[in-house]
C-alpha cells in the first residue's frame, strides 16, 4: 500500500513542474488521506497506474488557474480543448517523473481527462489514497495519488 514517505516523489514532481514549466514555484500543503468521495475541480487529468503498483494519479484544477498557467507557458490558446490538454500533460509529467523513484515497472497510461463541475473521485478498493494540496499564485489545485 502507498506509504506517506512515497509521496515525496509526487510532491517533488509537482514542485518541479510549476518551477520549470511556469517559472514560479507552487507551495505544497500537508498531504492527507482521501477517505470519502472528493469533488473535483473543473478540469482533471487522470493517469492509470499498472505493473508493480496499481491505482491512479489525478491532477485536478480550476479553469482560472489553468488559464494563468497557460499564460505563463506563453500559450495563446485558452480553449476548452487546451485546458483539457494541459491537465492531462501535468498529470502525465508528474506521473512519468515518479518513475525516477518507482522504476520502469511503474506503468502509466495516456491521460484520461474529465471536465465539468460534477465529477468526483473516491478511494479505490485495495489502494491507499492521499490528497496533496497545491497552492500557486492565488489558486488552489490538488494532486490525488491512489496506489496499491
Amino acid at each position, binding site marked *: 500500500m502507498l506509504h506517506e514517505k512515497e509521496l515525496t516523489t509526487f510532491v517533488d514532481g509537482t514542485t*518541479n*513542474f510549476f518551477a*520549470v*514549466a511556469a517559472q514560479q514555484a507552487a507551495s505544497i500543503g500537508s498531504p492527507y488521506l482521501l477517505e470519502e468521495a472528493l469533488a473535483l475541480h473543473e478540469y482533471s487529468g487522470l493517469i492509470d497506474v499498472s505493473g508493480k503498483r496499481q491505482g491512479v494519479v489525478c491532477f485536478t484544477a480550476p479553469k482560472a488557474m489553468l488559464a494563468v498557467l*497557460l499564460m505563463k*507557458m*506563453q*500559450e495563446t*490558446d485558452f480553449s476548452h*480543448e*487546451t485546458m483539457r*490538454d*494541459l491537465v*492531462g*500533460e501535468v498529470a*502525465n*509529467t*508528474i*506521473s*512519468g*517523473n*515518479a*518513475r*525516477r523513484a*518507482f*522504476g*520502469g515497472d*511503474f506503468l*502509466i*497510461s*495516456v491521460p484520461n481527462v474529465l471536465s465539468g463541475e460534477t465529477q468526483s473521485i473516491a478511494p479505490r478498493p485495495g489502494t491507499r489514497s492521499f490528497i496533496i494540496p497545491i497552492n500557486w499564485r492565488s489558486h488552489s489545485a490538488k494532486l490525488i495519488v491512489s496506489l496499491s
Partner: protein
Amino acid sequence: MNGTAKRDFKLLIVDDSNIVRRRIERSQEFEELRLVGTAGNGAEALELFSRTDPDVVTMDLTMPEMDGIECIGHMVAMKPSVRILVISALADKATAVEAMERGANGFLNKPFTDRQLNEAIAELLR
C-alpha cells in the same frame, strides 16, 4: 552561393499534447531547422515520416495508438541517419537506455526549459 551556407534540416515534432508541440515549435531557436510536420501519436508520426522524410525528430514516448519506443524503431529502420531527440516525462534510467538502444540520439525530460531544449537540439545537430 558561398562555402559557408548552412545545411537545412527537416524537423518533425511528435507529442500527444498540442501544448507541447507548439512549445517545441515556438522555443527552438535554430534557423537551419524547418518544420515539416507535427503528429499526435506514433501511427500518425510514421505516416508523416514516410511522406516528409525529416532529418530530425522530437519524440514523446507515452502516446495513444503507437508509443514512442516502437515508433523510434520503425523510423530508424526506414532512415538510419535520422536524429531523434526523445522528450518525455518518463524519468527512469531504463527507459532512456531502451530509447537509445532503439536508435534515439538524445533524451530530454519533461518539464524542460527553453534553454534545456535548445541545448539538447544543439547536441543533436552537432
